[in-house]
């Protein structure tokens, strides 16, 4: 148990971090909307890139956080209850942040696709893999909700391991699928590099979204830890009441 003063200190630091991430995001967005040059072929539509790509990148980083936390959970589950609870809370927080970032990535990507390709969706390798990532994390959250005893952490951790293996396989298989049937739209032009004058806006947005993700992760982790503590105390009190009743 931490000292109350230390908790208050950490809370202040966290809110400071949150404010800083909002400030960085605002600055990045300003650069993206007003300072960065207009793209040659797509025009102003391309400016969604500065939010789409950073959230898509974050949506690929946070699943690893979830996966590592799940592995830690499976490893320490039998050894230490506190460590297992911490790992589980961390895994849950990372999964929720993943789901948010992947949703933002999908929605902004569809808007952009509609504007520049003329279609909302194509079964391109990257889009399909991303959609699968979204589906897997929805089922991860569902397993956690469907528990009868509130004890599905182990099962959720197992699903997390499966998700981590499944996503690369899907990426590979869709790539094969698409090389056999040529894709109607070409994707990946942006990876061939962007103009250096666009770089500052992109990097500031990336930093802003990363800081925001970490902020939400810590907030959600603290909330989940508190929920665990309340559940633990309630159970303890019920046991004590039972003992007194018997005495």
């Amino acid at each position, binding site marked *: 148990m931490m000292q109350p003063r230390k908790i208050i200190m950490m809370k202040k630091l966290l809110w400071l971090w949150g404010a800083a991430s909002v400030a960085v995001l605002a600055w990045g967005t300003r650069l993206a909307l007003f300072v960065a040059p207009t793209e040659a072929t797509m025009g102003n539509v391309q400016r969604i890139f500065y939010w789409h790509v950073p959230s898509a990148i974050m949506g690929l980083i946070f699943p690893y956080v979830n996966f590592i936390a799940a592995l830690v959970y499976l490893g320490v589950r039998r050894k230490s209850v506190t460590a297992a609870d911490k790992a589980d809370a961390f895994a849950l927080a990372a999964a929720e942040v993943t789901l948010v970032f992947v949703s933002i990535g999908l929605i902004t990507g569809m808007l952009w696709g509609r504007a520049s390709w003329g279609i909302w969706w194509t079964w391109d390798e990257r889009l399909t893999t991303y959609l699968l990532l979204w589906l897997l994390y929805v089922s991860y959250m569902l397993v956690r909700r*469907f528990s009868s005893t509130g*004890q599905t952490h182990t099962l959720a951790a197992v699903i997390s391991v499966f998700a981590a293996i499944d996503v690369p396989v899907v990426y590979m298989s869709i790539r094969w699928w698409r090389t056999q049937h040529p894709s109607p739209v070409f994707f990946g032009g942006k990876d061939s590099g962007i103009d250096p004058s666009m770089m500052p806006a992109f990097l500031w947005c990336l930093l802003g979204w990363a800081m925001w993700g970490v902020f939400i992760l810590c907030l959600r982790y603290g909330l989940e830890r508190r929920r665990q503590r309340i559940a633990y105390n309630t159970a303890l009190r019920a046991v004590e009441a039972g003992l007194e009743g018997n005495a």
Partner: protein
Amino acid sequence: MSYLLTVLHHLAKDLRLEWRSRDAITGMLFFSLLVVVLFSFAFDPTAAVSRQIAGGILWVAVLFACVTALNQTWTRELRNHVLDAQRMAPSPASALLIGKVLANFIFVTAIQLILAPLFIVFYNLHALGPKWMLLLILPLGTWALVMNGTFFAALGLRTRNRELLLPLVLFPISIPALLAMVQATTGVLTGDADPVLWIKLLAGYCIIFTTVCVLLFETVLAAE
């Protein structure tokens, strides 16, 4: 050696149980038959079109049938606390899984053997590619579905709505396998594409996921 013996014991027990009740097989068979008939009404395909879609319909029918049967495969063990006894038994937990997967594999293969002639009749099928490859595709695809399905059915045992949970978890995880089975089968039926690449993917999927399921099964079985 004793591991193999345990697996065989589990397999024999499941086969005997199924032989006495015949619940899973009749249910699956009638269900997949209905799916085949319904799709035939829904699309009303010509011979050329049916070659394109039959692979997909076959595997979707098998997938749905698997889900209906696999939900029952572990509830059987819950009666009289058999599963608790299994949990305490000194034999390796994965032997139980392998035995059950083998039993389910045999059931689903039996369904496919009955379904295949019906498919040819109802959809007017005439394969243009190398037909013998289906002998590889069907077992590999069935193994991929049954392995993951049995594992996730065990995972859903201690949840509410376990009937609903199995497809919600199984379908997303099986997407690459399903894609590979459908592409390979369509490749054989139409003769347009080479199915070898997809068979390789399917074999790789089977190896990877069998390993993971076997490694993680003890965790799932012992989970609170």
